[in-house]
């Protein structure tokens, strides 16, 4: 199973700033290993951020995103104590969801 994410959600004025660190190889499928064999593509495809269970960000990513990526979002209408859940699904069907509380 994939390693956990590190999520920080903080109120800055009336906007909630969310920062997510993900642990993922993000292989493009273009690289070759030492033996000249193509390294199979392995990257996060879908990404969602939910605030108290309601989806506020839904996006698609591909192989151009770096290994162990960092994402940042700004969300309006959140308040301290709200639950932030971040989920991803990769092209191999592996998935991961982690939660934190808005500070």
């Amino acid at each position, binding site marked *: 199973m994939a390693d*956990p994410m590190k999520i920080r959600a903080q109120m800055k004025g009336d906007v909630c700033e969310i920062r997510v*660190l993900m*642990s993922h190889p993000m292989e493009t499928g273009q690289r070759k290993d030492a033996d000249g064999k193509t390294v199979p593509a392995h990257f996060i495809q879908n990404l969602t951020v939910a605030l108290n269970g309601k989806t506020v960000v839904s996006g698609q990513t591909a192989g151009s995103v770096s*290994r*162990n990526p960092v994402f940042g979002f700004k969300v309006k209408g959140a308040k301290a104590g709200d639950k932030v859940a971040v989920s991803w699904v990769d092209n191999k069907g592996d998935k991961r969801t982690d939660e934190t509380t808005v500070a």
Partner: protein
Amino acid sequence: MRKLRIIGAACTAAALAATGMAFAQSDGVDHAKADAEFAKFRAEMEDSNPAELFEMKGEELWKAKRGPKNVSLAESCDMGLGIGKLDGAYVKMPRYFADADKVMDAERRIVWCMTEKQGFSFDEIAKRPFASGNYTPDITSLVTFVAGHSRNMKFAVPIKDPKVKEAWEIGKEIAAYRAGPYDFSCNTCHGSDGKRIRMQNLPNLAKPEGAIKGVFGWPGYRMTGGVMLTSQWRMNDCFRQQRFPEPKYASDTVTYLLTYMTATANGQLYKGPGIKR
């Protein structure tokens, strides 16, 4: 006229740089400004440093019962301040450990705990001790976790301890030792002020303000390749770049060099696991 002279100096600089040699700065570039720009970039990156992912992994490994003896490092490993005490341990290393009768840096100490307390085989650990590609050795995550417990603390290597002082002296000797096909020593590039290779400023490790630049960003996450690397790796790679034989993993030589650099940086701030280009 003045401008012309600066351009002339820059051309000389470029010519020298092309030979791959370090040389004194006389190139008309505003280095203070360039440094400030780089510091801004670093501050931005530090805000979301993937090194934190390895700290999390390291915490898991630190607390888990592992190895043939099925004990955790948390309940068996003394990093110098007592078993399980990690706050400020990293900035007070390398230090002398009576149980091992050796001066040890953080990584070497964890390796010692893994072999002596948990029963892991040293040869197995030393087979592939550094990260590459998607592979990160457990020891790297563990060092990152331990280093994270000294975030925003000042380096305080116990240099008054005669054993540490001796290690410092030997480290200083090693830094000055010229050998290899290029007849290089560490000090050839890192032993005086104002040197650089291409656009990379080289710190003078003999001075506190230079030594801190050598140690404060390790362990560090290198964005090129996305790998987490430790100061053991950094030392190893210095030897490789000097075309020296590479030192044995977690050996005296590396600890002595780290003692020299870290103790010279004493009194200055350690910001925690770093991020590299």
